[in-house]
């Protein structure tokens, strides 16, 4: 129903009541603006957390031990727990089906490392060949420790990009060079990079078998680390990893005679459990943003209705005049509704476009931890505007209806 005469009448009214129009529009536009920005940040937060967990293989489980804190089966608390090769082997057999990659880790303290005459202060770790995939390292030269190195306790070493930068000349190829570790020559077979950056590139890797032999490790290991085979959904993956986690703890506690409720003797870090916690947190925050956003919208609607009420009150006499001159009640309602809908729609879309533009142009530059590229689902935003317009109409309807009901004579008497 496009009635040009009505539109002209409305534009007339709007043009001549600029402040009123501006205030109504502002409350709608700011409501939409706040909602879109909030939703955008909710999305950004989700993106950020997802990104954070994408860096490490996301279904990683890591085991470390401390001393016991509880008496159990006649053993005193304060007993250190030492993981051993047999633990690793047992788990490997027991969970063959579930496991994707596995590696025991033997950390060497105070190893003296030299390249030629230069002392290198990096930590040395003995690992299995699967460790590359567990810690998500990529090779920038050569290869990682392989199965053969491990089985033959080869004297080979993998260094990081950072070490290469700091120790070798720019155009020097470190592969096939030799490092001196505790007086033994190790051949460099590869250079790795870690997504975690420099902090994660302070480590030198050698085969765990070599490490245990050279550094009197016997069958001791410091950590066990695993990744599980991928599942078809996030929830299934969490489920599987929690099961594995539980089975693993049960076995280790039995094997080392640790009380089932000892909180710190045997510890696991389960990346999916952590991820789930973050995702739950993010979900919670998104819910909260929605809640705040919807409250904002409600406040906007209340604001618009309030303004409409005042506007109608303000125009009581005008409405009386129009009625005396022949305006039908419905044409009064239609006029006020048409006007309020038009203003709500224009300012709603204005707020939408403005806030989307801000997200679009500034979003990619926002670098807060755990917030990545805030953006908003266009459909969601559009729907909100329509909801707001509808709400504006409902908000406008009652004052309009009341106005149309006012007795003409009363209305004319209004000051």
């Amino acid at each position, binding site marked *: 129903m496009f009635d040009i*005469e009505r539109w*002209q*009448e409305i534009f*007339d*009214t709007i043009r*001549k*009541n600029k402040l009123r129009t501006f205030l109504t529009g502002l409350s709608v536009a700011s409501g939409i603006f706040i909602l879109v920005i909030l939703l955008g940040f909710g999305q950004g937060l989700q993106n950020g957390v997802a990104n954070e967990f994408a860096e490490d293989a996301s279904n990683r489980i890591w085991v470390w031990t401390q001393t016991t804190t509880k008496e159990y089966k006649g053993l005193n608390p304060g007993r250190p727990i030492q993981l051993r090769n047999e633990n690793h082997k047992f788990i490997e057999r027991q969970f063959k089906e579930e496991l994707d990659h596995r590696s025991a880790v033997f950390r060497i303290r105070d190893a003296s490392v030299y390249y030629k005459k230069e002392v290198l202060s990096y930590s040395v770790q003995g690992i299995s060949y699967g460790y590359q995939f567990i810690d998500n390292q990529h090779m920038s030269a050569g290869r990682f420790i392989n199965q053969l190195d491990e089985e033959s306790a080869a004297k080979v070493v993998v260094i990081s990009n950072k070490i290469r930068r700091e120790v070798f000349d720019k155009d020097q190829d470190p592969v096939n060079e030799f490092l001196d570790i505790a007086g033994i020559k190790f051949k460099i077979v590869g250079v790795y990079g870690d997504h975690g950056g420099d902090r994660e590139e302070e480590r030198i890797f050698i085969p765990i078998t070599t490490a245990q032999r050279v550094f009197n490790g016997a069958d001791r290991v410091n950590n066990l680390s695993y990744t599980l085979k991928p599942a078809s959904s996030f929830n299934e993956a969490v489920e599987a990893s929690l099961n594995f986690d539980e089975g693993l703890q049960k076995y280790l506690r039995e094997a080392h005679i640790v009380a089932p409720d000892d909180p710190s003797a045997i510890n696991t870090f389960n990346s999916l459990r952590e991820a789930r916690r973050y995702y739950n947190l993010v979900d919670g925050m998104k819910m909260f943003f929605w809640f705040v956003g919807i409250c904002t919208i409600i406040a906007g609607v209340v604001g618009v209705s309030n303004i409409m009420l005042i506007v109608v009150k303000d125009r009581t*006499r*005008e409405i*009386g*005049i*129009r*009625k*005396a*001159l*022949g*305006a*039908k*009640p*419905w*044409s009064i309602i239609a006029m006020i509704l048409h006007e309020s809908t038009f203003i709500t729609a224009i300012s709603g879309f204005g707020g939408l476009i403005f806030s989307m533009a801000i997200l679009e142009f500034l979003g990619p530059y926002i670098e807060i931890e755990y917030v990545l590229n805030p953006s908003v689902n266009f459909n969601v935003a559009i729907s909100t505007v329509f909801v707001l317009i509808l709400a504006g109409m409902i908000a406008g309807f009652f004052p309009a209806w009341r106005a149309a009901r006012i007795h*003409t*004579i009363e209305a*004319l008497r209004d000051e």
Partner: protein
Amino acid sequence: MATMIEIKDLHKSYQMGKNSLHVLKGIDFSAEEGELVAIMGSSGSGKSTLLNILGLLDVADSGEYLLDGKLIKNLNETKAAKYRNKFLGFIFQSFNLINYKSALENVTLPLYYQGVNRKERQRKAMKYLEMVGLKEWSHHLPNELSGGQKQRVAIARAMVGEPKVILADELTGALDSTTSYEVMDVIQKINDQGNTILVVTHENDIAHMCKRIIYLKDGVIEEDKKIKQVRASEYVQ
């Protein structure tokens, strides 16, 4: 000559809590086409009440009302609005112009509700503004006009829809006497063209510029007399 307005035994009371105020107690009255009638009476005698009923802004409790031969009965709001728009023009003491609209736009309003297109509205409105001598003021807002000018805009607005009857409630009540005569001069001129006009007034001199005076007292018409009309033009300049 056709009978424009005919009312028989019209009653109207106002309910105020438990008390009821019987204002009109059986009014019989008729007006022919082209008449210019003054309605007089003391304050509170029911002049405005009567005029509002005639103007379809209010309804009587009982009695019969024929407007241009049509029986007015049980009108809903929409129908009443339509009749007002088509048959009636109003002039009020307090002008009742829409203050954000120019003189011209105010005058076009009844035509807007008649569904006349914009161009035609403006043409007609200009014609009537010219008739009341305000052609040059058409684009001014009401608050840029004097009282007399405002009332002339209101007269143009009442005229523009070419209604059968024009109803004026104390149209000179807010004006000084010179301005009142100027306004009455316009009223007489449009009456000369055959318009039926009812004027509620307190002022004797204004009443005597009409052709007939009726006096309301205690809810009935106490006196109804034809008079010799005084021409307002004699008092202007």
